[in-house]
């Protein structure tokens, strides 16, 4: 669980160029991390590669916070 969060956090920090401290489970990609819609699409693509999984468009649309992403990934592992 913690491991998934750390891996997601690293990708978010790299991709969105934000402070590590801002990337919490509760952080919203669009509101707190200033990602636009395309950034979120790209993040999902990178997460798919990192965790070697496929996230459907329907599932991806539900991912709003860092926690959403972590929980979804954990549910597929």
């Amino acid at each position, binding site marked *: 669980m913690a491991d998934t969060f750390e891996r997601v956090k690293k990708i978010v920090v790299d991709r969105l160029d934000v402070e590590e401290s801002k990337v919490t489970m509760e952080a919203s990609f669009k509101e707190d991390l200033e990602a636009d819609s*395309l950034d979120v*699409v*790209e993040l999902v*693509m990178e997460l798919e590669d990192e965790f070697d999984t496929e996230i459907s468009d329907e599932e991806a649309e539900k991912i709003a916070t860092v926690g959403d992403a972590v929980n979804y990934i954990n549910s597929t592992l």
Partner: protein
Amino acid sequence: MLKGKVALVTGGSRGIGKAIALELAKQGANVAVNYAGSEQKAQEVVDEIKQYASDAIKIQANVANEADVKAMIKTVVEQFGSLDILVNNAGITKDNLLMRMKEEEFDQVIQTNLKGVFLCTKGVSRQMMKQKSGKIINIASIVGVTGNPGQANYVAAKAGVIGLTKTTAKELATRNILVNAVAPGFIETDMTDLLTEEQRNSMLQMIPLERLGKAEDVAKVVRFLASEDGNYVTGQTIHVDGGMVM
């Protein structure tokens, strides 16, 4: 000019698509030639490309079918390692006057000519976003701008392609993916060969350059957009029509 680039040309076995595939290959690109039915013709294009010291493969796929499109793009990336240029050229016609046009005739043309562009664009956008570069060139038509009696389905699809081009250009611009349309006018192809002398002459009267275009004329504009020379051009529809529509 395009050395090391990888291009996918849909409907690349004949006519304008074939000319585009050959032109990109001449500039050094490796080319995937998509075809729907004419395997023999696609193979001939592949063989001709290999004479230019570029690599080529042929891929059968119906662009209106998402599973086909996904498999096609996967094959291109596996074979060549990247996908830098997509030319959405595949198209069909089922002409009829509006009052006589059947629902299937309308649907089939929209499926291939418009939905096919959407599916292929969506399919390559992932790869191009990862690469942070890409060129998408949609072959529209001048009739998509002017309208044309007897082609309600085709014109609606081509006008749709122009709108899709602009939207895709705006959505993907920040990822350095450039999207443009090329709108050919009257080009000498199998289709125009069927015209009567009278029809041909009346067409010529509408063209300031007083001649029909060649498939190569279209291919050279595509090559420009696909190359670095076109790096500040996106969301545009370039008319290749001898001045017919200004």
